[in-house]
């Protein structure tokens, strides 16, 4: 095996890829577009009115006036939580994203502040950290209402403040769920269609026949293509993570298991692409066959939606799909940090990868009949 030959083919693949606007779009821009679209749908970017739960423990004229002012902004709709509720329990049971507690003694503290300038009162603001975008908007609205109260009461001195409390830290947001799924889906698409192209278009164009008559070996060719597939997988994974972190502020852990899953997934779906290209030789039909396999798998394997949302029989079916283990493995390895589950998922992905890749390599022929 010659490293120079592998490097030559790898570099040529990158050049070819980087010059194709269509390929760049589907590999890089499309996953980002999906993230942003799903982000807009699920994080409430399009909301014009935000619900804010309020527990008014003071139940005074001033606290009611504050609540009225919040409603008066037109951007916030308050919902009152009775003072008898245990707030932590209430948030947990009702999946509340934003809740403000006006403490008992609110009005008294404000009145006292006219005499004692050091007196202040803080509202407790419970926030679901997963709803960063909409929370930022609500915080800024609440802050501006507080500021105007402070101005009115003291001429600018901060009597009323906010204590931010992050709610349910171990509960994850849709993005924590969605982002690893997006990574798995993108690697699947890239590798399946990349392999199909090599096995149908290159065959039709005579490139495989040509290579057969040159000194490059099949092993060198497959290795260089797998290097290229890994390159694409890591580039798209990095981009997806970057968008997730920058735009949605999610927290991702880069772990060895995550790297292993990405590598194994690249081999797995390259093998699947080889098998499709082996049995469906026409380029267009092979693309359609690729779509017919990957598209339902994308939905059924819990890429965008929790498996629990689906009927029982579909859940059982999902558990035989390789993408399910990729998605779950990535979630456990990079988000939930559930390493024992991640190891089991990784083992499943590696087994799938071994079976598909070996079958793909063995059944794919360069030679014509």
């Amino acid at each position, binding site marked *: 095996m010659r490293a*120079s*030959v592998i490097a*030559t*083919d790898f570099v*040529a693949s990158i*050049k*070819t890829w980087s*010059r*194709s606007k269509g390929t760049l779009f589907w590999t890089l821009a499309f996953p980002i577009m999906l993230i942003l679209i799903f982000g807009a749908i699920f994080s409430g970017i399009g909301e014009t009115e935000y619900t804010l739960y309020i527990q008014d423990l003071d139940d005074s004229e001033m606290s009611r006036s504050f609540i009225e002012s919040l409603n008066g902004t037109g951007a916030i709709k308050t919902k009152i939580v009775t003072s008898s509720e245990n707030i932590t329990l209430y948030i947990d049971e009702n999946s509340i994203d934003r809740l403000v507690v006006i403490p008992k003694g609110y009005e008294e503290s404000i009145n006292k502040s006219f005499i004692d300038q050091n007196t202040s009162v803080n509202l407790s603001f419970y926030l679901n950290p997963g709803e960063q975008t909409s929370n930022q908007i609500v915080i800024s609205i609440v802050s501006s209402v507080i500021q105007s109260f402070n101005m009115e009461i003291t001429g600018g001195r901060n009597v009323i403040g906010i204590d931010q409390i992050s709610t349910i830290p171990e509960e994850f947001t849709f993005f924590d769920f969605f982002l690893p799924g997006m990574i798995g889906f993108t690697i699947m698409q890239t590798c399946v269609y990349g392999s199909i192209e090599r096995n149908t278009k290159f065959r039709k*164009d*005579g*490139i495989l*026949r*040509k*290579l*057969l*008559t*040159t*000194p*490059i070996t099949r092993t060198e060719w497959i290795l260089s293509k797998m290097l290229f597939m890994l390159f694409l997988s890591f580039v798209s994974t990095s981009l997806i993570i970057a968008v997730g972190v920058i735009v949605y502020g999610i927290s991702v852990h880069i772990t060895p298991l995550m790297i292993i899953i990405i590598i194994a997934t690249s081999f797995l779906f390259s093998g699947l692409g080889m098998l499709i290209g082996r049995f469906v030789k026409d380029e267009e039909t092979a693309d359609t066959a690729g779509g017919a396999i990957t598209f339902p798998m994308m939905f059924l394997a819990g890429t965008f939606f929790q498996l629990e949302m689906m009927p029982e029989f579909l859940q059982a079916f999902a558990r035989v799909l390789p993408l399910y283990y990729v998605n779950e493995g990535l979630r456990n390895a990079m988000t939930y940090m559930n390493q024992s589950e991640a190891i089991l998922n990784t083992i499943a992905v590696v087994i799938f990868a071994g079976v598909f890749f070996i079958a793909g390599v063995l059944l794919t022929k360069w*030679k*014509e*009949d």
Partner: protein
Amino acid sequence: MMEKKFKCPDCGKVASYSGMPGEIKTVYCPYCGSKGRARLPELKHIEDLAIEVSGLRKIYGDLVAVNDISFSVKKGEIFAFLGPNGAGKTTTVEIIESIRQPTAGTIKLSGKDIKTHFNDIKKNIGVLPQEFHSFERLTVRETLVYFSKLYKKRADINKIIESMDLKSCEKRLYKNLSGGLRQRVGVAIALVNDPDIVFLDEPTTGLDPKARRDVWNVIAGLRDNGKTVFLTTHYMEEAEYLADHIAIIHKGKIIAEGSLNELIERYGHGSLLRIKRCKTDGAVKTLREKGFDASSEGNGDIAVKIDYKDRVLDVLSNLRHECIEYESIDIRRSNLEEIFLQLTGAKLTGEEIA
């Protein structure tokens, strides 16, 4: 000693003579007594052979694609494998290139069996597969560099670009090239390892006449540089223009083989003299009465078969003597299309003649 058949240019009858390979002999026609000189062909020495194919068969189910063919190609010649689509040309060449497995037969390239030495052989052959399209988004130079780097022995890319007249398009992406340029790049790719034998499978299919002529010039240049060229084609003009040696394949079998002159001599009907727009009634009958093989082609055109060159003068003197008026005349020699038609009853395009 070897024996060779010849067709007497005077009486048109086939006879034979014998002698040593390469010997020039005085030959007498046993039928009309005409005398002439002829040279016996050189014997193909094993060391002079670039390609040796023996007993090659390829069977797909019930279909015999290649039916027990044997031939050899001398070093430094352009060998044209001519036949209609589906005759078995590409199957044969792809077996020689080790892209397909033969059902039976042996193949040697430069004296080495491809079954056991193909990894060695690969280094010294260059191949342009049928309907080859290279990587669309690499430039011409990048494409040549890519294929060149697959070999240890490399030709100078600059020289290839220059000799193939690709300088002006070396920075253009392959996908933006015209059909003719793509084929020239394909031939150039086949040369990146400075091969001894170059296989070109239908290199001009689908090209316009100008682009085809350009590719022909490139192929002729390969022979001038000492390469052996194995060319498969279904264009008889291509084989006539380029080939030193032609093998005609039909339905998986080689039905004729030799140089163009040998094939015409052996299977052709000499030349055809065509009298255009004859204005005299009964001219065909008159010519036939004078012993000429004349026939009407419509629109007043008359075709007269000419067995040997002196017959042209006979026809012309008879036209004058019989006061036969016409617009013009032309003379055309038998071509491969006619030879193929005569041998198979079909046109090279694959069309059967009723």
